[in-house]
């Protein structure tokens, strides 16, 4: 079986074999067992892979290699659909596996990028994944043709069977896969015309559901190995603080405790954490809570102080320009009236359901980890860096993630787990963060404010717009080399002109404005920001789309008509907006309070119309959402629908409750009691319109999050006459203005 052959190539595995570890996770994406009455192929040697993407067993089981991580968004199934389509294989025989990042390195990165983020899982790899499958199909056909002594061009493929046209002879993929694996790959392949797709575009069920219904699915937090120890960790609560001392003797005799260790800061000098390693995690955590620890240094940062810095940025002279055109000063000078609003977005935590964790095993010969990661290759590099071992002696075994949302692209927890395993060579150590650690030590959705001003002429036309963002840059903190002359263009997601950066071409502004300016006064608090599902598109959608609503009302115009007036250059954006308006009953006199939003981000056009009621006590009920998305090609409509629904939960949880604040340099919200998330009672019905216009590959997992909050905020205004410009809504008074 291919899994075995993949794993046996792990040169460093000597250590693992010697300790005789049984590892309880490798079955997680392996094919299910053969049926009792199936033919017996046990006499035959196992087939080699057809190519890097595809392995086919004698019984026709197709194993598709998936480099990207599955963290809930259905990427695994979508990518398998792309492969199955070009392979012409039987979908019911498809299974998947993760090739390891170490294997990728040894095979000269044959699977290319492992990073899973930016809604890139499918759109960022669809071309080479489909080409790989098409090449495998060509090799299977050629193998059959060779056996029959006929030209390959006379053979066709369908549903895992090759047929020779004139003779009518047939061969199953499984019967020729061995021969195919020995052939040279074709120099060129032609991908199918989308009109001929049979598997792409179908609402296939996910391939990873069964084990998620029975408790069988193994997550990082669930890993069990023979002899494994468990670690609980506490990091310096205060930003920038380090470990001064701890008194291990106070806890060493507690049940199960094996070792108490200082842990080095993965990103700086000195130790900034302490961990207890014990037989069981519960014991480790209990001892850690009882452990006397002294911290030193750190920054006395508070959210309130930083807000003042952001306020200063709102009107600062200097700012980085992200987009603009025309003559704004002239437009403002000639205004019949000006409209102005200031918005405020807090820090937010990813709050993945599964707290951060990694299991690591360190021996003299190598170091390997079992890790829920969004970026297997970055995790591999982190293992090498933390262990000091050459990367060839390191390995990462990826596991399905219990949520990622951007948090699990960061390697801090990988470093820590390797350092803990190095304390006890030869013994696997599972490190699991508590929920409190996961809340306090996030890479937060950045905090920004915006001051937006617009000028209207006497006829209610928008003549000028200035959108000033003040606040935190993700790139400045995490990837400073990606700044361009100091500018973080990612800050302007959804507001950018075309042509500024090829990597941001999928994040451009679709409205046309005559005179406008979008700029950013960068103000960076000492808090680490991160890529949080949807990234900067989320705030920018609130700034732009809530303000467009304010402008429309100030101008006495219909918010739909007002928006469409600026979308004449983007028929696709206009189409999604019109679609939600039509379906929701926009403009009807049924007395419902509705709000609209339209955005373009991650290469997809998205829109939403929300319907809300606010009762006399100010209690908000989000009654109905109509959402539309045009991702170009829709690989799996039912999964897109699931992502659209889920995006409202993520986006509206942030709008309702999501806020991380600092006092004295420490995060105040440390668990779900103070950092709440939407429950089913808050959840509206979501009607999703999927309208793939074809010709491009847009993202699915993130863009819709951006339209969730603005549509609801605009509906709240329609219901109450009150503008909410500060998030989260939490305790704000929503009673009628």
């Amino acid at each position, binding site marked *: 079986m291919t899994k075995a052959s993949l794993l046996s190539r792990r040169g460093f595995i000597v250590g693992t074999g010697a300790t005789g570890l049984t590892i309880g996770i490798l079955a997680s994406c392996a094919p299910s067992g053969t049926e009792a009455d199936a033919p017996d192929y046990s006499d035959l040697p196992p087939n080699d892979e057809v190519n890097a993407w595809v392995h086919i067993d004698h019984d026709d089981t197709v194993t598709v290699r998936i480099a990207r991580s599955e*963290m809930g968004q259905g990427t695994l199934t979508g990518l398998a659909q792309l492969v199955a389509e070009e392979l012409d294989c039987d979908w019911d025989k498809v299974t998947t596996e993760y090739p390891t990042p170490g294997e990728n390195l040894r095979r000269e990165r044959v699977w290319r990028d492992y990073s899973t983020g930016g809604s890139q899982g499918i759109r960022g790899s669809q071309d080479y994944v489909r080409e790989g499958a098409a090449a495998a199909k060509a090799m299977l056909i050629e193998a059959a043709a060779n056996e029959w002594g006929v030209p390959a061009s006379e053979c066709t493929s369908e549903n895992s069977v090759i047929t020779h046209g004139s003779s009518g002879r047939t061969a199953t993929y499984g019967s020729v896969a061995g021969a195919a694996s020995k052939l040279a790959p074709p120099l060129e392949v032609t991908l199918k015309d989308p009109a001929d797709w049979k598997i792409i575009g179908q609402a296939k069920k996910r391939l990873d559901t069964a084990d998620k219904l029975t408790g069988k699915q193994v997550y990082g937090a669930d890993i069990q190995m023979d002899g494994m120890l468990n670690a609980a960790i506490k990091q310096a609560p205060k930003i920038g603080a380090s470990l001064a001392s701890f008194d291990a003797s106070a806890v060493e005799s507690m049940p199960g405790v094996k070792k108490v260790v200082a842990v080095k800061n993965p990103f700086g000098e000195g130790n900034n954490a302490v961990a207890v390693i014990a037989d069981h995690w519960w014991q480790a955590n209990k001892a850690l809570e009882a452990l006397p620890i002294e911290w030193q240094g750190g920054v006395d940062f508070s959210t309130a102080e930083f807000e003042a810095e952001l306020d200063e940025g709102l009107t600062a002279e200097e700012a980085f320009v992200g987009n603009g055109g025309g003559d704004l000063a002239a437009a403002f000078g000639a205004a019949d009236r000006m409209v102005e609003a200031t918005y405020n977005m807090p820090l937010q935590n990813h709050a993945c359901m599964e*707290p951060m964790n990694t299991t690591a095993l360190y021996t003299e010969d190598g170091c390997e980890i079992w890790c829920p990661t969004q970026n297997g290759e970055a995790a591999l590099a982190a293992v090498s860096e933390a262990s000091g071992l050459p990367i060839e002696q390191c390995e990462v075994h990826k596991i399905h993630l219990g949520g990622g949302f951007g948090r699990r692209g960061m390697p801090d927890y990988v470093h820590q787990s390797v350092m803990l395993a190095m304390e006890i060579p030869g013994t696997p150590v599972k490190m699991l963060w508590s*929920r409190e650690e996961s809340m306090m030590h996030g890479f937060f959705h950045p905090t920004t404010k915006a001051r937006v001003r617009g000028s209207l002429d006497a006829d209610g036309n928008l003549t000028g717009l200035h959108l000033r963002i003040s606040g935190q840059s993700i790139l400045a903190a995490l990837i400073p080399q990606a700044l361009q002359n100091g500018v973080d263009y990612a800050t302007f997601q959804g507001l950018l002109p075309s042509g500024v950066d090829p990597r941001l071409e999928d994040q451009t502004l679709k409205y046309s404005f005559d005179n406008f300016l979008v700029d950013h006064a960068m103000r960076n608090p000492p808090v680490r920001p991160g890529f949080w599902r949807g990234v900067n598109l989320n705030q920018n959608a609130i700034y732009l789309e809530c303000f467009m609503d304010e402008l429309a009302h100030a101008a006495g115009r219909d918010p739909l008509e007002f928006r469409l007036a600026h979308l004449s250059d983007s028929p696709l954006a206009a189409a999604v907006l019109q679609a939600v308006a039509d379906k929701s009953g926009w403009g009807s006199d049924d007395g419902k309070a509705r709000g609209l939003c339209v955005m373009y981000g991650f290469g997809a056009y998205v829109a939403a119309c929300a319907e809300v009621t606010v009762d006399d006590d100010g209690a908000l009920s989000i009654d109905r959402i109509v959402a539309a998305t045009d991702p170009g090609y829709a690989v799996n409509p039912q999964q897109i629908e699931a992502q659209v*629904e889920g995006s409202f939960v993520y986006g509206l949880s942030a709008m309702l409750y999501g806020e991380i604040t600092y006092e004295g340099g420490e995060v105040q919200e440390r668990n779900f009691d103070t950092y709440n998330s939407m429950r089913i009672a808050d959840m509206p*019905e979501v009607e999703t319109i999927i309208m793939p216009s074809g010709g491009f590959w847009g993202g699915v997992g993130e863009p819709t999050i951006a339209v969730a909050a603005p549509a609801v905020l605009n509906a709240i205004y329609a219901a109450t006459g009150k503008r909410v410009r500060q998030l989260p809504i939490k305790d704000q008074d929503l009673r009628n203005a």
Partner: protein
Amino acid sequence: MATLKINGKSVTVDVEDDTPLLWVLREQVGLTGAKYGCGIAQCGTCTIHVDGSPVRSCVYPVGALSGEEEITTIEGLSEDASHPVQQAWAELDIPQCGYCQPGMIMAVAGMLNDNPNPTDEDIDAEITNICRCGTLARVRKGIKLAVEKA
């Protein structure tokens, strides 16, 4: 030492009395279906049944059990994923990352034990589990489908 009845079997564990049932199940018994999400009874990922009723096992000390109670975890909900809730979940393809789903399924199955035909208001009041992937809309549909299947 405690002897417990878990999924119809008698199990003896050597554990301090204050250990939450969640960690007994996960670390002593090897049943990792119930998940750790918050440890303070907020998220519901650790939901199991004690005598058929849903319980957040992260705050349920093992010492509070007499040993007579029937403890059911997701692994024991059915032999072969045939419980109506599991069937409905499969049909609607509900899980995304899936981490919250064992708790979600157990919370729903527990509710249906007591209240086989819940109204939307009952669902709102009784199903308060967190799902960060956002399966909540499908969960409501799933509950209704499970009621039909039961």
